């Protein structure tokens, strides 16, 4: 491995272990390095790649695969993903080993239980921030967007329907009400 593939691997390896909060939290760092410092991607390509990765199913972390592919093709894709996910895999593995070994320890129980409200609070924040970002367009379009977000939240919260129906309903409502 030479050149950009190796650089990609090293960059995402370094970024991996400081990316608390996942790929979304690391996007500003990626933009700084990939667009501003190294000129690997244009600003437009970066934004479009991020939008696609957010719209596509699956974890948003796959955005790093899009960056890798843009910079160095399939080798770049593999180097970026392995660099970004490898260290977190090993760390999560080690923490799982530790928690299972200390399963009976009340301090570990308190640690595990104590992180739950913070985690759920941060997940709610993610939903609110992405919901606010999606509430764009004219006044009427913003109202429709907020209504879709609200209705979807209520359906997923209070009913046992598959969230797929909420997503599909949101898409169809968008198609009908948000087309210019």
């Amino acid at each position, binding site marked *: 491995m030479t050149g950009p593939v190796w650089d990609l691997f090293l960059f995402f390896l370094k970024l991996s272990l*400081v*990316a*608390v909060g*996942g790929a979304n939290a690391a996007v500003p760092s990626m933009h700084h390095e990939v667009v501003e410092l190294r000129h690997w991607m244009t600003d437009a390509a970066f934004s479009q790649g991020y939008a*696609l990765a957010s*719209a596509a*199913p*699956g*974890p*948003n972390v*796959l955005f790093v695969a*899009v960056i890798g*592919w843009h910079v160095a093709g399939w080798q770049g894709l593999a180097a970026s993903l392995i660099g970004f*996910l490898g*260290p*977190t895999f090993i*760390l*999560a*593995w080690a*923490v*799982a*080993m530790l928690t299972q070994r200390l399963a009976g320890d*009340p301090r570990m129980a*308190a640690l*595990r*239980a*104590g*992180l*739950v*409200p*913070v*985690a*759920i*609070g941060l*997940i*709610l*924040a993610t*939903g*609110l921030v*992405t*919901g606010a970002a*999606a*509430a764009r367009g004219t006044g009427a379009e913003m109202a429709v*967007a*907020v209504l879709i977000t609200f*209705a*979807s*939240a*209520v359906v997923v*919260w209070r009913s046992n329907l*598959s*969230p797929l129906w*909420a*997503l599909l309903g*949101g*898409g169809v*409502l*968008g*198609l009908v009400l*948000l087309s210019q």
Partner: protein
Amino acid sequence: MTARPLAPASPWVESVAVPKPSAPPVDLPLNPPPGPAQLFAAFAKAGLMGFGGAQVWVRRALVEERRWMTERDYAEILGLGQVLPGPNVGNAAVMIGRRFAGLPGSFAATGGLYLFPLIVLMSLVLLWQEFADDPHVAAFMHGLACAAAGMVIGNGLRMTGRLRPPPELIAIGIASTLAAAWLRVPLPLIVLVLGPVSIAAVVWRGRRGTGVGA
């Protein structure tokens, strides 16, 4: 008060037993633990469905559909996954896979989670120029993005309802939400400040509720 042993991990879930008729049953028996192939299938489905957050779908598959783990178990693993670097659901996949099926389980869950979404995403990247200018596609994706945000919010509320946390932990959850969404405090700082506060609250509730020191 008889000193009940501080048995199943966190004391607060059991201590507040207010019945909530609308909530789906929480205490159904769990199914036998899955092997790597079942883990791969479950995480692959969750990854492919996972618009706007695969975490929502992983929880639904593991807790509600296949009943491999309890709501509390899942929430605690996700909590660890959230404070570790990297995607919370990716970290959860490693930890859940290890717990049920060791290293093969971790690889199966991780592979399932990422493989198919990666194929879909790269197909989109390669084909996107044909769709990018179609206003119908853009409008559909806009509505979908709104619904996905709502789904993430609804899922967080659903977990909270089923976990029935005491008021001090609800307050900490709301503080985390406000700090991240409104004040835009960096996530590591929120975890470093509110994490210990929350752990202290759990210990305090455990001492008060059961009379057993933590």
